């Protein structure tokens, strides 16, 4: 057994887990954060993407014990209270989801993608960057649209904040 202690969605949590417990199972089964999904067993589908210390990580590729000490954000922790994160809002507005199963991983991957491209995104980049996330419902069309729209919104927001600061 391993003792793990980490911060998840702003809360300190700890637990004792079987050594083989993956981070995704710790989140789902020990913490009840079932928004993070398991869609495959080969780290291909990306339904389990969360942020570990600010970076998008497939939580099925990491042991819970390895994540001890880190700061995790899951889909449940992305919105600012009642206010949706711009990526969440864009997925709804642009119909970027159907069955919703891949959606948490898509949204977590997309927020990371936008953060890594402060200069902006184009369709080809978004499609290439989504290589690690599989969706069977949408044909990606509206997911790509939603991510491009969210990137725009967030860059306007960032510029606004920069202006305010100046």
């Amino acid at each position: 057994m391993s003792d793990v202690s980490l911060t998840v969605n702003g809360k300190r949590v700890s637990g004792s887990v079987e050594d083989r417990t993956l981070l995704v199972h710790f989140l789902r089964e020990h913490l009840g954060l079932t928004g993070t999904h398991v869609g495959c067993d080969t780290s291909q589908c990306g339904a389990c993407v969360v942020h570990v210390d600010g970076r998008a990580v497939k939580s099925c590729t990491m042991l819970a014990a390895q994540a001890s000490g880190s700061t995790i954000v899951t889909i449940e922790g992305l919105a600012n209270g009642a206010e949706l994160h711009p990526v969440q809002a864009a997925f709804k507005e642009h119909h970027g989801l159907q069955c919703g199963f891949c959606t948490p991983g898509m949204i977590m991957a997309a927020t990371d993608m936008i953060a890594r491209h402060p200069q902006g995104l184009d369709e080809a980049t978004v499609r290439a960057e989504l290589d690690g996330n599989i969706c069977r419902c949408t044909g990606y069309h509206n997911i790509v649209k939603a991510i491009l729209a969210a990137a725009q919104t967030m860059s306007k927001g960032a510029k606004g904040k920069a202006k305010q600061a100046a």
Partner: protein
Amino acid sequence: MGIEGVGARVARKEDKRFITGGGRYVDDMVVPGMKHAVFVRSPHAHAQIKKIDVKRAQSMPGVIGVLTGKELKADGIGNLICGWMIHSKDGSPMKMGAWSPLAVDKVRYVGDAVVIVVADTKGQARDAAEAVEITYKELKAVVDATKAIQPGAPQVHAEAPNNLIFDWEIGDGKATDAAIQSAAHVTRMKIVNNRLVPNAMEPRAALGHYDKAEDHYTCWTTSQNPHVARLVMSAFYNVAPENKLRVIAPDVGGGFGSKIYIYPEEIVCLWASKKTGVPVKWVADRTESFLADAHGRDHVSTVEMAFDKDNRITGLRVDTIANLGAYMSLFSSCVPTYLYATLLSGQYNIPTIHANVRTVYTNTAPVDAYRGAGRPEATYLLERTMETAARELGVSPAELRRRNFITSFPHQTPVILNYDAGDYNASLDAAMKAADYAGFTKRKADAAKRGKLRGIGMSCYIEACGLAPSAAVGSLGAGVGLWESAEVRVNAVGTIEVLTGSHSHGQGHETTFAQLVNQRFGVPIDSVSIVHGDTDKVQMGMGTYGSRSGAVGMSAVAKALDKVEAKAKKIAAHLLEADEGDIVIENGEVKVAGTDKSLPWFQVALAAYTAHNLPSGMEPGLKETAFYDPANFTFPAGCYISEVEIDPETGVTDIIQFVAADDFGNIINPMIVEGQVHGGIAQGIGQALLEGAHYDGSGQLLTASYMDYTMPRAGDLPSFKVSTSNTPCPSNPLGIKGCGEAGAIGSPPAIINAITDALGVVDIAMPASPSTVWSAIRAKKH
């Protein structure tokens, strides 16, 4: 059209929970005392079970139960069934072999469930599963349907000699022979439709809970049709009588047909819960999904299409061998027959058609409906043949199609169906315009200058949806009726619950069904809740598949709304002292036409429940139920055009553009309809370019993970140009045809027609992967 009414592009109500991690799928369910199950599956495609030794597994840490098929049979659990009886042309019934939920004497495909292990954790169950010792005597396996029907092939079921399940025909053989013999031209092809794995992103799962005190079972399951699951599990598998079995299909992460069927796992989890005294949850690994979900397609056909000297089709003959895998899944028999051969007339006026279909057992996963179900196979066969014929006859593909289009309705085809409405020229025109078809020659020349091969291909599809008139399908062998039910409950404060037998697993019913109510009463969609997926809440329903939720499910809602409206108008007329015929309901108000007299909607609802002042003899309450049985199938149709560019050095195909012009009849929410088309096209492009389930000769599935089976990813696809030009469906009250499957039906031939056009070859196998395309280019050079 109001901002939330029919035709409005309303953002989905259900999205809130999905984008915040609040969806509730079966794997998210936790029941006190719940334990975890792992199935021990056959590693062999064909073997006798000589011995099962569970002793060591039973003594492993955390293990609660290790149960076998013998115990299951001893408890009277029944075999799985196929729900559609097909008779061979000699009049004999289909030859169905037994499918035990846990194999007893023999295993017939890799992945066949043999033992269930229940333990405290999934890890412990997995460890114990590895300690179950099964002694097999391996037998020779057969995976290819065309080989399975050869004399001397390994025999999958004793009940079906030569593995032939049925040999069925439709149409007029003699007239078709005569048409072919007297034709000015006959186009002949061999058409292979590759086997696919549906791959809903949520793996199948089941949670069985037996309540001893109540002698009652609850099953949470990833189902597209929980009521059908309850019916079948009660009536055929002897799990429990219907009143003692509740089936709940909560949020379900995609289905595409693969979650219609009642599989062994949910039956076994329910039984195991009673046997072990604990709630039992099973969630498939992805590899289990590949092995044991029902697959799709897998047809091999020959086709002969006869033309007169004016390039009019005079006859069509088709001979198809359909691989049904190791067992007959729930609707496997109707897919290559009534959902396939009845569509062989396509959009064309064909005087005579004959189709012969042989269905065959092999040592592979069961094959059943996958998005489109028979209709993609028919469309692929027909549209590939039309393309080849156009090339042979030296006419443009568009011109050959136009010459043969059905232009007057209703149209009786020679293969049962009666098309009620459509405008095939309109879709073709719209698609050609959107694709700038006229400019293709120049684009091809430009590509050639860059050393690239450009091709363009079209496909004009039709499908039969809105399954289906119950009496009609009953006469064709269906074991069930295909109506839908609805209940509309107006609460005392005017908010509304709609209970439907349709099931949403991505289709957005919580929004579109609410839009229908908004249209009728002006109640905001936030005040309308759609209840589905629970046999304790919704009385009965047939579920969601075959693009039926709009055409059939919403028609049932419309019927129930009619009744609510009629009663509400009676109450309002009484309260407002007006004539019932003068009452109109608009924007949440109940008014007397031509006066300023009105009541807010909620006051009418309240009056129904206080019952202080109702018309004489009227029952209190405002709640109505309706069953809707469709009068006909619906016939969505359209034209898809794809343009591809191939790099001859690598064989890589780039889709430059993909255009869809569909006729879906009336549309409730264009945003959702477009989403359905996008998803369908992606699956169709997947079939054409990327996906294929491959078994080796010994029956091992070589494509059993996302490392081996190529799922379409964002980088494989373009953005799509979609549009609709609609002719309302005359057979249902809403004029809806359905849109769920069109994309997957129409797109594979459009892609392959474009690739063969680019390469200048007659045919290429699906999936047209880079290596396949590269090999075709090389073969042509040498």
